[in-house]
């Protein structure tokens, strides 16, 4: 063995990572070669100093407790998203399956799964009922996201645009003069969030009949947010069409936003069905305000004309 070859093996020899055949050759060479022994000693010393240096540097630092606090908060946010948990479980199952399979099997399975999925999707999408169902399911799945996406972009509503309204009718109105017995009431809300207050635009319709708007005293209805603060309800939202649905069924329509709604505030259009004049105050989940928003004063917007309505109260 030549000195040059020996030098290349010295590191692995010191680390005990050398092949047995090379070890025998190297040890034989070292016995005869003083310069190589000296080189090995120098290399060992250099290794030791480097190791000491790195360990000393590493031992001198420790992470701050803030890191865990930030991480825990992030995990808390993610845990509220059901899709995230679903994907994690799915990833785990796929990973366990693919662990014991050869490469060609994994690749074939990927291609096959893609083809089957695409074909199935195309067949299903050819049915209008399926398209409607998927659209509804997507909205239902996305609902938790807007409630918890604290740092997401605010959902904005441009003035005059028609927003889709999706309602599920699952209650009937039994005690209200403007409704016939068995009629179904649909309530629509556009919610504006300002750092200092929350404004809820509210309207109600009953299926199969004309739109009914209730100029009720705001103090009658309170909306409670996550922090248990209560807000009066403003109601200026117009619903230009009648939504028709039987109890237990779903109805879709559009709702025109009649006036400028603060584009910088988180504005959401939500819809639900309520039984009016229930004895308990309403309770809806309101997402937290998007941080860093400078609100435009409500007074800056032109106020629409209020049409006086007869009191619907009995």
């Amino acid at each position, binding site marked *: 063995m030549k000195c040059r070859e020996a030098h*290349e093996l010295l*590191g*692995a020899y010191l*680390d005990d*990572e050398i092949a047995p055949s090379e070890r025998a050759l190297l040890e034989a060479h070292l016995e005869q070669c003083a310069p190589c022994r000296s080189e090995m000693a*120098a*290399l060992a*010393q*250099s*290794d030791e*100093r*480097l*190791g000491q*240096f*790195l*360990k*000393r*540097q*590493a*031992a*001198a*630092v*420790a*992470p*701050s407790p*803030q*890191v*865990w606090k*930030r*991480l*825990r908060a*992030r*995990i808390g946010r*993610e*845990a509220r998203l059901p899709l*995230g948990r679903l994907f*994690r*479980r799915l*990833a*785990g199952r796929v*990973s*366990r399956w693919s*662990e014991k399979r050869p490469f060609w099997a994994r690749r074939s399975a990927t291609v096959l799964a893609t083809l089957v999925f695409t074909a199935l999707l195309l067949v299903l999408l050819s049915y209008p009922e399926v398209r409607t169902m998927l659209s509804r399911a997507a909205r239902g799945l996305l609902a938790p996201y807007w409630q918890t996406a604290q740092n997401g972009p605010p959902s904005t509503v441009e003035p005059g645009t028609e927003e889709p309204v999706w309602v599920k009718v699952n209650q009937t109105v039994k005690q209200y003069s403007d409704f016939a017995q068995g009629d179904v009431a649909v309530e629509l809300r556009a919610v504006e969030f300002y750092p200092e207050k929350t404004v809820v635009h509210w309207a109600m319709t009953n299926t199969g009949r004309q739109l009914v708007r209730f100029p009720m005293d705001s103090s009658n209805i309170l909306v409670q947010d996550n922090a248990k603060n209560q807000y009066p309800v403003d109601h200026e939202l117009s619903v230009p069409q009648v939504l028709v649905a039987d109890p237990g069924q779903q109805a879709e329509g559009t709702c025109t936003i009649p006036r400028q709604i603060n584009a910088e505030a988180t504005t959401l259009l939500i819809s639900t069905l309520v039984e009016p004049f229930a004895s308990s105050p309403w309770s809806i989940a309101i997402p937290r305000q998007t941080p860093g928003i400078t609100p435009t004063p409500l007074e800056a917007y032109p106020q629409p004309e209020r049409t006086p309505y007869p009191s619907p109260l009995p």
Partner: protein
Amino acid sequence: MDPIQRCLAGDQEAFAQIYDRYKNLVFRTAYLMVGSVEEAEDILQEVFWQVYRSLSTFRPTVGSFTTWLHRITVNYCLHRRRKRWLSFLSLDRIFPSALPHPGPVFEEQLGVSTAIQQTLNGLSEKSRAILILRYSLELSYAEIAQILDIPLGTVKSRLNQARQLFRQALATAIDEVPAPHPSPEKEVPL
């Protein structure tokens, strides 16, 4: 029950235990890689976020949990958005007790540390990762190859190159240590 299994079953406390057990390991590896406490803390958070999200893909049959963790850490360090590699030498960090009493031994240590730091700064990030895994964490060549997903021969050759650089840098540093100053002769009072 193993905290990893408990965490997979949805136990949030188990994840806190995993974090407590491995936070220093990840943080110190990241610190040696990037040279900044703040950046290492960011990396620590990101690494454990990835651990939380992909724990279900960890397979004990393929490798140990620490190997998996090192793999995530080093890969994150190598592929993060590059920030400037900070090269600084904090004297009170390296020699907390030696500072008040400088002398020839201290100067030699300082020279050695400076040489090591400068050589580390001059290395590519991949070579630096190999050195940290080998000398700080004392991992085997096979484990290093698995973590970095490179052939065993590449580990050996890069380690050899880096070693030679350090060997030369240290030899130069020790040779350059100035000889101790002769103490001035005391004046004899007349």
